[in-house]
């Protein structure tokens, strides 16, 4: 068949796209989803999921292969890693989740079309279908069009992708752990993958053009991570700009701000200098939508400037995170179904899965002060946490920011082992509009790392027990 009509057409099958399609199906809308590659988009196939799986393997390997003896008397002679098995295990995780998404789509009666979509106008898309191989392009007309094309890695002119220079997507297809890995760009993707491969035995050097890695997070949060990186042998060169590859392509040439150059031998060069919304090759220019910088402009209901056309996920702006895309996907389906909905969240948690991990929810102290509110800040180091000590992982701390007058929490940040799981408590507190007294009034199980949260709050209230106030 060469023509298809539906009520909701979603372009892009990543977290945002499939969430919108599933929710639309649940709401009884006749939904179609078009995805050229595999369902799940960047996050599920070459992003969040595989990188977390890789980090898990790295942690296990590092623990089992620790050179020095542990303080608790465990020494391990040696551990072997079959990396090809690692990558195939990771692939199996990805495939199971892909299948899961496909199943969810089918369950919600969403028609999944495999092919590259190209917009003709605000209500018509042409898909060069690969699946049925018919080769004849399929024209889909719809009443509502949801654009969820996601984002793609930025390529450095000086270091075009190709050969040993690869983007983060390709890291999970390596057939072995590179001996020497140079990571260009100190963003969270670069540091995460750099940490993982360092644990897997690679010699890792991170080259960051600006003064500091993880620019989105304040110094205090990043310092414990920097220390850990140095401990694990990862070399971090800040204020150093990559010039390009040597002639034979094996050496990365970079230049410090003082003009001196540095040369880094590299078997693999991972370029993670940021991501940009995917706005090419699918006809966005045909729609001539209002833009906001490189992104497509949207209002509080994910509506673009054109009636009946919506945009969600990385295409629609910062922060480019999967859980934001998912929330928008659900929202846009409900808006199309005629419900009164709007983007109404107080915060979107940001998590960096380095070692130690970093979490930031809401405002950090400097931003809070900048908005002119009188604030109180409370900190609690994991070194004073029983559980941290008992698990020999005492790096980092939890920090709370609250309004001085009515103690309403404005922001919670933390760095430390396994702190990513605390992001749930932090986000819930902010979303519920909790005050310091609410957190202090909640009994946290002992001994857990989560106790650091009420302890930080107590510090802010000046009622701390487990910390001698300085």
């Amino acid at each position, binding site marked *: 068949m060469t*023509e298809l009509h539906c009520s909701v057409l979603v372009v892009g099958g990543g977290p945002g796209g499939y969430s919108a399609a599933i929710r639309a199906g649940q709401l009884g809308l006749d939904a179609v989803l078009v995805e050229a590659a595999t369902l799940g988009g960047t996050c599920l196939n070459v992003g969040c999921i595989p990188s977390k799986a890789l980090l898990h393997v790295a942690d296990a390997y590092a623990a089992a292969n620790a050179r020095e003896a542990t303080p608790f008397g465990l020494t391990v002679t040696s551990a072997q890693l079959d990396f090809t098995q690692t990558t195939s295990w990771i692939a199996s995780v990805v495939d199971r989740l892909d299948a899961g998404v496909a199943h969810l789509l089918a369950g919600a009666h969403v028609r999944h079309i495999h092919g590259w979509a190209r917009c*003709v*106008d*605000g*209500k*018509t898309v042409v898909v060069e279908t690969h699946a049925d191989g018919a080769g004849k392009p399929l*024209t889909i007309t719809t009443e509502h069009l949801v654009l969820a094309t996601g984002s793609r890695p930025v390529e450095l002119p000086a270091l075009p992708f190709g050969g040993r220079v690869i983007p983060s997507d390709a890291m999970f297809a390596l057939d072995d752990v590179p001996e020497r890995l140079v990571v260009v760009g100190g963003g969270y993707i670069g540091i995460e993958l750099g940490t993982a491969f360092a644990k897997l035995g690679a010699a890792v050097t991170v080259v960051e053009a600006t003064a500091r890695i993880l620019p989105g997070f304040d110094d205090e949060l990043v310092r414990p991570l920097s220390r850990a990186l140095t401990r694990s042998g990862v070399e971090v060169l800040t204020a150093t700009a990559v010039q390009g590859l040597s002639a034979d392509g094996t050496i990365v040439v970079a230049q410090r701000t003082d003009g001196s150059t540095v040369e880094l031998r590299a078997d693999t060069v991972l370029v993670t200098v940021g991501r940009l919304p995917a706005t090419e090759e699918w006809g966005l220019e*045909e729609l*001539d*939508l*209002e833009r906001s910088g490189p992104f497509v402009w949207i209002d509080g209901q994910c509506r673009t*400037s*054109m*009636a*009946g*056309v919506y945009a969600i996920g990385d295409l629609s702006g910062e922060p480019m995170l999967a859980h934001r895309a998912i929330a928008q996907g659900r929202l846009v389906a409900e808006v199309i179904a005629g419900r009164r909905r709007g983007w109404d969240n107080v915060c979107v948690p940001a998590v960096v899965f380095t070692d130690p991990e970093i979490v930031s929810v809401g405002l950090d102290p400097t931003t809070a002060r900048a908005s002119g509110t009188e604030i109180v800040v409370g900190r609690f180091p994991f070194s004073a946490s029983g559980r941290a000590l008992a698990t020999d992982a005492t790096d980092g701390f939890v920090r709370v920011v609250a309004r001085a007058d009515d103690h309403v929490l404005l922001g919670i940040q933390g760095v430390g082992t396994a702190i990513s799981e605390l992001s749930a408590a932090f986000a819930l507190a902010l979303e519920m509009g909790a005050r310091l007294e609410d957190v202090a009034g909640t009994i946290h199980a002992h001994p857990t790392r989560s106790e650091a949260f009420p302890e930080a709050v107590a510090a802010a209230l000046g009622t701390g027990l487990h910390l001698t106030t300085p």
Partner: protein
Amino acid sequence: MLVIPEPAWRPGDHADFSRDDFPSPGETRRPALADPPEAMRDLATGLVRVLDDEGQAVGPWDPALEPSTLVAGLRHMLLVRELDRRMLTAQRQGKASFYMQSLGEEAVACGFRAAQRPGDMNFPTYRQQGLLVAAGYPIELMMAQVYSNELDPLHGRQMPVMYSAREFGFFSVSGNLATQYVQAVGWAMAAAIKGDDAVAAAWIGDGATAESDFHAAMVFASTYTPPVVLNIVNNQWAISTYQAVARGRASTFAMRAHGFGLPSLRVDGNDYLAVRAAAHWAVERARLGFGPSVVEWVTYRAGAHSSSDDPSGYRPKDEAAAWPLGDPIERLRVHLSGTGVWSDADHAAMVDEVEEQVRVAQVDAEAHGTLHGGPTPSPKDIFEGVYQEMPSHLRRQRQQAGY
């Protein structure tokens, strides 16, 4: 008492043209290209004719063309007639909103085209599709325009038959009558200013000569004498108004030229050879710088005005058959078979071949959609091409429209 002219017969009467004494073939003389208008005034009431009743080519205007070119001409006319027939049927089947045939007057356009060169420009009305067919314009594209489908070069913006094809010397057709006539003179004036040897051809129906733009064109042509041929296709009917209402007391439309000091010919539009000869004469005259000339092509609109009209409401059913100057295709066929180079079998084969060509073309065209079915240009196209750059108020309206 106000005189209201009436046609000689109405529905129910019997059409009888015997009283119209058309000059016989070969009787009207052929002036030299450079002859001054004053020396040619007699031709305005003559009638350039080559084919006699037996189909023999006689008289000074015989263009003595190779049989092969005549066969090509015959094929053009057959192609136009078959295209018209199929497109009217398509309209009846709801695949197009509208259609206009040039049934019975195919020779005028097909014949005239042969006298023109690439670079010349026609300013046609909606009944000169023969100019395109004879110029080799792909009939699938004409059908695409009639269907407003995805191949329509005009993106479904214009009503059917309002073609536009600059490379084929075919100016964009407008629904408004006679507007193109003075535009053709302007184009010719530009050719003269630029000094190239291109020739313009203006086209108008008998009824539309009443429009002011026709008179404006005649004044400008007379004043500046640019290289333009001013064609008047007198097919007897302007929807339900017969040609005398527009012609008034003048005995022929060709005589209009005399008031403006322009030379004019009156030609039997259904005589393919006469059309080729007269067209060549007028175009060459203009190209050689001897100025414009007016040509009245006497023919008969055998079909309805359009798919929305039924002539039985205003003229007898048998009038078409009674037209003394016959059918252009039949008369050329008789002439060709008379020269012994074109048998009935040849003709039948060509008719079948033409019908097959048009049928296949229609299948291809319809594969790309018709007005109510299949792919049509995207609604966003409405907003494009109004200006070169889309102004902001139009961009806003497009965004609100959601296409």
